[in-house]
């Protein structure tokens, strides 16, 4: 009988809608006057939005900047060139375009497009998501080097960068993946676009913003004086994706053109600790212990995934509260006395809308279920990431020279200026 109930409900809705629309067609309270004098009614103007063609122009400029960065970093081998491009991006993508729409945030748009049938993803958003990833598959993280406005401001503010211990760097490396997972979870459930909301530098680029946001930006910049590119290294979710894709890049910035003289000047230059040390500096473990360690950790991965899924499912209630529908439902159920609070606009609007608490609770339950599944996937995914990161540390890779770590290196080309081999070649 469900279909019958549904039919009746639709009919009633139709009748209500007809009556409601009749009201708007009905006589106004105060009818429009018939003017006796020569009065011309003003025609208000409605200014048009920015032309969509300009968005594609911005995209073209992005491609141009990334291409130039790749050429400068790999072929031309000049820090100066990268610096010029970085400053350009600071002003164009930063202060002029005010950072919107950016590749970092586009993750959310793409995620929403996959999850929500009513959402239409603009082509520009899709391209701004794909292009830096595709470029990184061939040239490394050229987007981070000189195109991303978030990276540009952090890169230019580096003052006295410190070295962080390896264990700290590796543990913090889980944060970007966590942020990525949370951003996707919140975007697909229609809760919020948290990457956009907590973008620290947007207040600075807009030269305007809530006090908290400006303070956040200043905090990051202060941190950026001493810890190079803190957002890029430890928070940026797009950076997590780029660190993955960049590992498989066909070409990449290489520190020395022919052979390394082991002078370590490049490691002094690199503020991001993105240069790998060669073999001879590290103790080479025995193959058998290595294999045993590897197998142990490999076996540990499913356990980590399971634990992650478990923690995820435990936390889904907490996470779902970020969603306003869920929060409202919880609030009204837990505090029914708030219904009579005239100052709470959201509750009063809800009560006036005619929607019942039952339907709200149903919607909230649906969303919470999405959170449960999403949080479990997120937890398992993070368990996998932790396992793989630990495993990665254990794998011994034969390195003879100092090399840029493909995952971490932003192709900023600071090392190129320091490398003496380079200079020798340049000056014959």
């Amino acid at each position, binding site marked *: 009988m469900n279909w019958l109930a549904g039919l009746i409900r639709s009919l009633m809705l139709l009748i209500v809608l007809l009556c409601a629309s009749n009201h708007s067609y009905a006589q106004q309270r105060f009818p429009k006057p018939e003017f006796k004098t020569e009065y011309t009614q003003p025609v208000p103007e409605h200014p048009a939005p920015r032309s969509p063609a300009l968005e594609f122009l911005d995209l073209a400029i992005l491609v141009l900047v990334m291409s130039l960065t790749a050429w400068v970093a790999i072929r031309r081998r000049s820090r100066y060139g990268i610096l010029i491009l970085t400053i350009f991006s600071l002003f164009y993508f930063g202060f002029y375009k005010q950072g919107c729409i950016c590749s970092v945030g586009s993750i959310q748009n793409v995620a929403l497009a996959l999850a929500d049938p009513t959402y239409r993803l603009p082509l520009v958003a899709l391209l701004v998501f794909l292009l830096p*990833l595709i470029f990184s598959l061939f040239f490394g993280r050229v987007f981070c080097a000189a195109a991303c406005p978030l990276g540009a401001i952090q890169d230019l503010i580096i003052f006295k960068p410190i070295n962080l211990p390896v264990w700290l760097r590796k543990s913090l490396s889980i944060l970007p993946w966590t942020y990525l997972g949370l951003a996707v979870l919140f975007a697909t459930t229609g809760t919020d676009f948290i990457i956009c909301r907590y973008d620290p530098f947007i207040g600075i680029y807009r030269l305007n913003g809530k006090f908290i946001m400006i303070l956040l930006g200043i905090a990051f910049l202060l941190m950026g004086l001493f810890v190079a590119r803190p957002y890029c290294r430890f928070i940026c979710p797009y950076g997590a994706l780029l660190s993955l894709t960049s590992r498989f890049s066909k070409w990449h910035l290489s520190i020395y053109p022919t052979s390394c003289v082991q002078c370590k000047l490049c490691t002094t230059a690199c503020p991001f600790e993105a240069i790998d040390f060669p073999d001879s500096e590290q103790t080479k473990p025995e193959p058998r212990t290595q294999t045993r360690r590897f197998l142990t950790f490999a076996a540990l991965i499913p356990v980590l995934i399971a634990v992650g899924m478990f923690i995820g499912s435990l936390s889904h209630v907490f996470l779902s509260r970020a969603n306003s529908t869920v929060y409202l439902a919880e609030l009204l159920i837990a505090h029914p006395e708030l219904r009579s609070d005239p100052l709470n606009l959201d509750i009063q609007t809800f009560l006036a809308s005619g929607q019942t608490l039952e339907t709200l609770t149903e919607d909230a339950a649906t969303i919470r279920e999405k959170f449960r599944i999403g949080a479990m996937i997120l937890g398992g995914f993070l368990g996998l990431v932790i396992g793989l990161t630990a495993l990665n540390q254990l794998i011994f890779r034969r390195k003879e020279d100092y090399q840029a770590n493909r995952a971490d290196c932003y192709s900023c080309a600071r090392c190129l200026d320091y490398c003496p081999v380079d200079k020798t070649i340049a000056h014959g």
Partner: protein
Amino acid sequence: MDRKKFITNVGRYSILGALLFITGQIFFKRRVSASGQYVWQIDPMKCTQCGRCATECIKTPSAVKCVHAYDLCGYCDLCGGYFKPNTMDLNTGAENQLCPTGAIQRKFVEEPFFEYAIDEKLCNGCGKCVKGCTSFGNGSLHLQIRHDLCDNCNQCAIARVCPSDAIKRVPIENPYLIKGAFTS
């Protein structure tokens, strides 16, 4: 070396394949708008004049302005959106006006009709006049997002807190939803 290169190549093309798959899914499910952007729009029928358009917009002053649908206006002497409710003298004194910034210009047309025009440079999008007009008048005043001012954020800060979910993304072809165009 060869094995490493092989793995790198496999990895690269797998990732490209995954990206292609995601793109394909999006196109296949018809969730791409090829024409371009979406812009934010206020539905004046859902608006509850909560005042958040003035306080939450990331721009100062807000990109939301009051718009007047003259077709619906009654041109009343005692305008519900212009005058404070306890006004005795119907003149343009600042103490009589609802608008906190004095953005409504009252102009005499003919007895007893007055034209009320919004000066957008002064309007802060608070919706007080909209509330007055909707409650006591015809509801010809309503709030709209002005697209020469709006930055078109990925997630509208006002939409996030709108109590009646009146702000939605719409195709760029029809950015405004002006009253009068669809009522009467």
